[in-house]
């Protein structure tokens, strides 16, 4: 089980802020493919992953990163703080 979190318009498109997912995906990209196959709202949110960022256990990472030992994955658009 892995905690998956969504922020900003990713959260709005998917319609929930976090969920627990049972997955055998080896990488972030594989997890994204699994999610996209689930429902249209996931496919819409992940349509263009170049517009997205991913954090693994609260550290910025990238879509090719392995998920071994990761407990929390978060997807969100580029950050706009400051």
């Amino acid at each position, binding site marked *: 089980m892995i905690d998956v979190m969504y*922020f900003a318009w990713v959260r709005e498109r998917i319609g929930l802020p976090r969920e627990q997912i049972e997955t055998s995906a080896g990488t972030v990209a594989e997890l994204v493919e699994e999610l996209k196959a689930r429902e249209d709202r996931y496919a819409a949110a992940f349509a263009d992953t170049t517009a997205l960022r991913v954090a693994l256990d609260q550290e910025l990472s990238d879509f090719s990163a392995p998920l071994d030992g990761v407990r929390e994955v978060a997807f969100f658009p*580029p*950050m706009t*703080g*400051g």
Partner: protein
Amino acid sequence: MTVRVQEAPFDLGAEVSQFTNTSHDVGAVVTFTGIVRDLTTRDLAVMEIEHYPGMTEKALQKIVDQANERWSLADVLVIHRYGKMAPGDQIMMVATASAHRQDAFEAAQFLMDYLKSRAPFWKKEITQDGETWVESKAQDEDALSRW
């Protein structure tokens, strides 16, 4: 060195005077304050800021640690708000204290450049016409390359 992520407003003057009272050999204090812009061409009613609790604090602390490694700083303060704000409201501030002005100025600019693109905050503008997520700017990402 202090990082705070909070919903409540902050008082720049009170923060800075507390800050300099506890530091020694400080000759220069630089502050940056980010304010919700009052763009008269649109009817911005509310700016809403979402963040990623847990990661936000870690990301800000990491940026502060990097600034401390690169410049000689007596103290650093970062406060970033989340939640709903109106035009003219203060969104965030950084303050840097050092013996000489160049360290304080450069560190404050570094903190702002990194905070813009590396701290997990997202801004949404709510106007009479609807809601829009603020898009990141390529120039904000480019700004990192100078450090």
